[in-house]
């Protein structure tokens, strides 16, 4: 079904300089935009929504993305009109808002084993950017000039990019044979130039870094800091805490771990937790309680700001509501079920899984088949495929993370799709998908000849 573009159902050009009370030179000449009534828009977006996969459509086992169920009630909580305040209101007049922020900071600190938390970073990558800047400020405060950040080869691309944005050289650490950090390689990489090692634990194939205490010692002995990428925190809730493992700085991905909806790309939130010594470098302003009143204050040696205001407020509210709904036992159970689901699903799949024991996610290999083609074929089985061809050290990787939100039947169906797709013929794979809204999309041409707006379509 073809859904016309907004522009294809009619546009109108308004003579702006004519319509405006402003002098001509201060306005645009004219404005052309689509002109759609509310009934037309309702149908347009309703139909578009029906052409889109989501957590409420079916399983979404993208490894490293933790697409779990997003509880409806958190939307209602976030929509409270009393919570809709302008960011420059005086502190005394928004005690409720500040109380929630303080409460969420406290929850996250407990969950991560951290001493202080900022909620300002608006996404995970912004959290990395913030955390690395905090580390940088820390070293600078000690007149300790360091130029490198070590990142495992299997890490998220954002780790590399965030470190580079902060001006660091990135030292890539190859994966060990067992899929974990190779202590010898780390030994070789660590030096006086090491500002930080960025690590995900469990790592991107779901393995816990068993040598984390040694790793921590090696980095700390060299004067570096240990950074925890929170992408995989859903594996460990209530069972292990980055702070207890020796991490100095961490970010949380609330749209992964704490079930805030990902909204087709965002908004997320990437709060950053730190050990006590680093708290004074956190972004300003910070929130605290003093004698029952909540207030904002600027830490002495703050790195400044990473967002115009206090980050993605609506997302933070939903994260608070989720954490409070689950409590200790619910959080622990969420991880338990996430790990059980990954292990159960793997058990039902006729795929080689080179590394283990894994926790909430695992990298199966498509072997001699093309993982991306297998994924396209899975679409015809009515499910969303896993992350493919990543991490790179697993050949034809299919990085799978079912999350705790699927039950046995759903996982059995998912396994059937995995097993069916890999057994199908090359032709079936090449022609997949065929039962979807769109058939296989030509991404190469899209990139070679970028058409990024409806004007570009006219110009073809």
């Amino acid at each position, binding site marked *: 079904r073809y859904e016309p573009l*907004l522009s294809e159902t009619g546009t109108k050009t308004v003579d702006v300089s004519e319509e405006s009370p402003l002098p001509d030179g201060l306005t645009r000449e004219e404005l052309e935009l689509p002109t759609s009534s509310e009934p037309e828009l309702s149908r347009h977006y309703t139909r578009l929504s029906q052409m889109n996969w989501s957590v409420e459509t079916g399983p979404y086992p993208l490894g490293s993305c933790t697409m779990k169920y997003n509880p409806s009630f958190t939307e209602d909580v976030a929509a409270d009109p009393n919570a809709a305040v302008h960011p420059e209101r005086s502190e005394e007049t928004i005690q409720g808002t500040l109380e929630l922020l303080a409460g969420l900071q406290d929850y996250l600190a407990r969950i991560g084993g951290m001493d202080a938390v900022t909620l300002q970073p608006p996404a995970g990558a912004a959290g990395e950017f913030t955390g690395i800047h905090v580390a940088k400020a820390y070293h600078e405060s000690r007149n300790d000039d360091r130029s490198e950040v070590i990142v495992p080869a299997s890490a998220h691309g954002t780790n*590399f990019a965030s470190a580079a944005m902060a001006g660091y050289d990135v030292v890539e650490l190859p994966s060990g044979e067992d899929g974990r950090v190779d202590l010898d390689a780390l030994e070789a990489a660590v030096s006086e130039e090491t500002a930080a090692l960025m690590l995900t634990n469990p790592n991107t194939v779901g393995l816990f870094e068993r040598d984390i205490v040694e790793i921590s010692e090696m980095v700390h002995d060299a004067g570096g800091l240990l950074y925890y990428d929170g992408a995989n925190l859903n594996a460990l809730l209530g069972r292990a805490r980055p702070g207890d493992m020796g991490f100095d700085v961490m970010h949380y991905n609330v749209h992964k771990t704490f079930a805030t909806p990902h909204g087709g790309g965002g908004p997320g939130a990437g709060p950053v937790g730190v050990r006590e010594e680093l708290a004074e470098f956190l972004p300003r302003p910070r929130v605290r309680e003093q004698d029952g009143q909540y207030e904002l204050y600027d830490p002495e040696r703050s790195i400044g700001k990473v967002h115009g205001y206090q980050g993605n407020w609506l997302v933070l509210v939903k994260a608070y509501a989720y954490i409070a709904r689950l409590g200790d036992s619910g959080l622990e159970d969420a991880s338990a*079920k996430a790990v059980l689901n990954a292990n159960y699903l793997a058990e*039902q799949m006729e795929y080689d899984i080179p590394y283990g024991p894994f926790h909430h996610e695992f990298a199966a290999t498509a072997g001699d088949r093309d993982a991306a083609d297998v994924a396209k074929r899975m679409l015809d089985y009515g499910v969303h495929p896993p992350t493919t061809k990543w991490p790179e050290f697993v050949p034809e990787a299919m990085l799978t993370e079912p999350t705790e939100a699927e039950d046995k039947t759903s996982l059995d169906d998912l396994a059937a799709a995995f097993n069916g797709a890999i057994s199908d013929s090359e032709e079936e794979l090449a022609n997949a998908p065929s039962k979807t809204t769109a058939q296989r999309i030509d991404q190469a041409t899209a990139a070679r000849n970028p058409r990024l707006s409806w004007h570009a379509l006219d110009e073809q």
Partner: protein
Amino acid sequence: MTDAGRHEHVDGTPYAPHTPAETAAMLDAVGVDSEADLFDVPEAVQFDGDLGIEKRSERELRSELSETFARNDDLTEFLGRDHHTHYVPSVVDDLSQRAEFLTSYTQYQPEIAQGFLQALFEYQSLIAELTGLPVANCSMYDAASGLGEAARLAGRVRSVSGTRVLVPELLHENKRAVLDNYVDGTDLAVATYPMDDGNVDVDALSALADNETALVYVENPTVRGTIEEHLGDVGEITDEAGALFCLGTDTAALGLLEEPESVGADVVVGEADALGVPTAYGMGLGLLATREEFLRQVPGRLVGASEDASDRRTYTLTLQTREQHIRKERATSNICTNQAWVALRTAMHLAWLGPDGLVDLGNQCVQEAASLATELNGIRGVKAPVHDRHHFREFAVRTDQPAPAIAEDIEAGGCAVHVLDDHLLQVCVTDVNASRTDELVDAFEEAV
């Protein structure tokens, strides 16, 4: 009182569907006795304490948080300064909150994500219409991070030789602070140029902008709400200096004020969520649009049109080799999760307004500000507006009495305004609070 739903998980998460029997069968299939056996965590780093987070039922939480938020005072806000509120129609909530949009992920499998991709393509197209610039990305976090990314983009553009980023002396302090962090780690350096009665001081800028300049940032409307009258001059100055011209604006203003492309802007940044998101304590949507020639230097996601195997029009994320998940440390930015859902809302709101609605909204922003300024100016001891310019939505107010004390009295009178300085306030009026300016005028009169 316990929560009445789904009792099997009273001690676990209510959001895992496992019945005890299913859990048992799955443990059996995996070959372990309990979930704990699946964790490969060395004892030394196991956590066996309590987090101390009390579980509440949905009903309890809704009631508790409703009480929490009720502790915010109910003030009529006349606040702006980089965060503006216009009425968002209900249909935007209704449609954007459909689960298929709200709970979807980044469109890595475009064949089953055509709906969101088309909506983002339409967002890009609408921004292209508003700015005149053909390349708009799917979003930055907010105006501040957009400016930071624009500066870094200038640093990557080969034709630009300088490293100085010139920003106006009147600039929101938060935006400046974020920019400082974005250029930290590059060889860019930020400097300010002076303003003349709330607009760019053209002569001063002309003198400052040389071939050491990478980027000149100008706002329209400015943080003081003035409409900038010298955009054409800025275009010429930046051209001559071989620098990029970065214009800061917002979606509501773009419908009325000068088209960025036509004044020579190379990059447009700003808050796109002036349309689409009601007041949400500063949550934003960073606009970023630029010229075709800088396409490969653009940060963030881009949606492009394509064809599928049966030659039908489709959409897909494109040019991903700029991005961190492919390019790693050589990416144009680290941005990954962005504000896509807010962009969806902004597109909906723009489409709802249409060209007539958007121009009308812009006109309201001009007229209501002018008329409120006139009213306030009639109060003894108050001068409004401070700047002898046209204003959009907001304006500065000079007070004979100390401004902080006046603002406090106004707050006691039920309204919120900005304090800029010892004798300087700022007020903002839009379609949302225009019917309540009487309250503000009364509070002002009481206060001075």
